[in-house]
């Protein structure tokens, strides 16, 4: 049985006086114990909303959630608020994007770690403090005993993110969701945090959902990658396959827009034109069609379905041909 089974997840935001906005639209994927799955896409593609929906953290008044999320066979959406609280932080841990704003500025780091231990592992304050020291040590924070009584503003960005990871992993959750955990950090720190995450989940039963816009992060970490566009999965493949031969024009564009060290001098970057539209019209053809170099007439008339295509899932009428990859790809446009 899969650890996490997301089926046909949809999230619609509604606000007074505005037309409802569909942020996630029929997303399905599963995560096996110990597996690392990537959710990749640019801002507004629905990747963060997907993770918040799984955690049950979307505002109940403005977000309408549909579909199903089963965790070890239990349907999370049918749990009461209290039952969900009992699981969050214990079975499901989450690391957020901006470590400074994600930590409470007026509460010492120590208490922010121990409160979750006291809540879910029933530890007394003293025992929880000892465990917290241990945890901070494990995530590579030097002098953990002193750090426990310090406040977030006294720690560096990397330290703060390490502290957040320690908090998320404090109760040894079976699933860890990392939402852009390196975006707000310096490049050198990014690498450290990624290898820390890798080290912490490798060889354990803890599964990891890695949410990122950065394919470099995915390349070093994920077993399987889901590429999202406009609230839907457009391509899913095993990591090596995806990088060797991205078939969706969007995935291809994402890979192509990464600056390369081995590129010839003076060669221009190739960005994907345009940006994600506010409300994604999947009902009238492919949402990516207006930005797609491969778009055909069918693309704007018939909405593509997510279908098996040479060993991977693909939502495209006119996928990129493997032969057109690499140097040839630019001429192909």
């Amino acid at each position, binding site marked *: 049985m899969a650890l996490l089974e997301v089926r046909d997840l949809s999230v619609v935001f509604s606000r007074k006086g505005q037309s409802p906005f569909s942020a996630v639209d029929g997303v399905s994927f599963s995560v096996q114990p110990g597996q690392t799955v990537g959710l990749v896409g640019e801002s507004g593609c629905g990747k963060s909303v997907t993770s918040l929906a799984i955690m049950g953290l979307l505002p109940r008044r403005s977000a309408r959630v549909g579909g199903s999320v089963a965790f070890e066979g239990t349907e999370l959406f049918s749990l009461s608020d209290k039952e969900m*609280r009992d699981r*969050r932080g214990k079975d499901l841990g989450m690391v*957020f994007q901006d470590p400074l704003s994600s930590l409470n*500025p007026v*509460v*010492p780091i120590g208490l922010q770690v121990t409160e979750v231990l006291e809540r879910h592992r029933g530890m007394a304050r003293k025992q929880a403090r000892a465990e917290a020291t241990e945890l901070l040590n494990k995530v590579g924070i030097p002098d953990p005993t002193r750090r426990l009584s310090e406040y977030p503003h006294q720690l560096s960005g990397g330290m703060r993110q390490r502290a*957040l990871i320690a908090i998320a992993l404090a109760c040894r959750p079976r699933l860890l969701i990392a939402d852009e955990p390196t975006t707000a950090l310096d490049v050198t720190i990014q690498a450290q945090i990624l290898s820390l995450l890798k080290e912490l989940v490798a060889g354990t039963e803890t599964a990891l959902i890695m949410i990122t816009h950065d394919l470099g992060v995915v390349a070093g970490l994920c077993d399987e990658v889901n590429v999202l566009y406009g609230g839907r999965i457009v391509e899913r493949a095993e990591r090596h396959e995806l990088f060797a031969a991205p078939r969706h024009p969007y995935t291809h564009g994402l890979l192509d827009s990464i600056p390369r060290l081995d590129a010839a001098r003076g060669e221009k970057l190739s960005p994907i034109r345009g940006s994600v539209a506010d409300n994604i019209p999947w009902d009238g053809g492919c949402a990516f069609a207006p930005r797609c170099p491969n778009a055909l007439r069918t693309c704007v008339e018939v909405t593509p379905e997510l279908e098996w295509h040479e060993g991977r899932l693909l939502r495209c009428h006119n996928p990129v041909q493997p032969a057109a990859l690499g140097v040839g790809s630019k001429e192909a446009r």
Partner: protein
Amino acid sequence: MLRFVARRLLQAIPTLIILSILIFAWLRSLPGGPAQALLGDKWTPEKEAQLNATLGFDQPIWLQYLKFLGRAITGDFGNSSVSGLPVLQEIGQGFAATIELSFFAIVIAIVLGIPLGYLAARFHGRLLDNLTVIGTLVGVAVPVFFLGALLKFVFADELGILPPSGRQDVTINATTVTGFATVDGLLTREFDATWDALLHLILPSIALASIPMAVIVRITRASVLDVLDEDFVRTAESKGLTTQVIRRRHVLRNALLPVSTTIGLQTGLLLAGAVLTEKVFNWGGLGSLLAEGIERKDYPRLQALILLAASVYVLVNLLVDVSYAIIDPRVRVS
């Protein structure tokens, strides 16, 4: 923390000195003067000159100021030109009355204002919230003296359940120790006196609390709404903490930062409202001394009163800064 407090107290000294110069100059630039006010109908230029000489108002302003400063340092603020009594003695009687009233008013404003503001934010956009917002608008808009007179009319004159004026029933015959009627009753174990003083305090302190409470409700509400959107609240939720812990530890503590600043500012403004409230309820605090002092151009009394008010303001804001440093580690000075 001690060094922080000491430094802030030292900073208050130049503030008060500059203020005393301004008051001194301002009072003497007003038309008329104490001599004119005292003489009234019997005024002649000769008599005024003579009286000014007696009171020392014929000397150059700077000399008058230096003399005032010299005496003030030793705690002598001169004698009132109206009653002839030492100003400090005069003020001493009214001071306890005004402080007692203001204290109860600000306590009511805080104790009711913060929970109400919090509840309004929690039920944001719903009936309770809308009622609160409307209520606070009314609270800010209704003048203190009007609300005071209204409360007095309903609860004292019509219903007769609360005393209409004064600080204490004269028949109680309470012993005065500190001048704070409620405290004195406790100290001398005359509990009926404390109870009576409390009954007398209800209406005026509610009237006086109305504006600061409305402001505190609004600031608390806005501040809680802001904090609820913060990332760290989402982190707290992601840890599966109980709602009580999230509210107390993560939301309210952060939301109280702007509220504490507001409380400081409102406490300062309270003194102005106290003058009006005291008038309505015949309270006998500093308000009547101040009003009479302005009317009769009583320089020594006004100087002392304004400086006292300023000192209280400085002190309250020091307390606010200290509370700020307690709540928020980021402003603590190492």
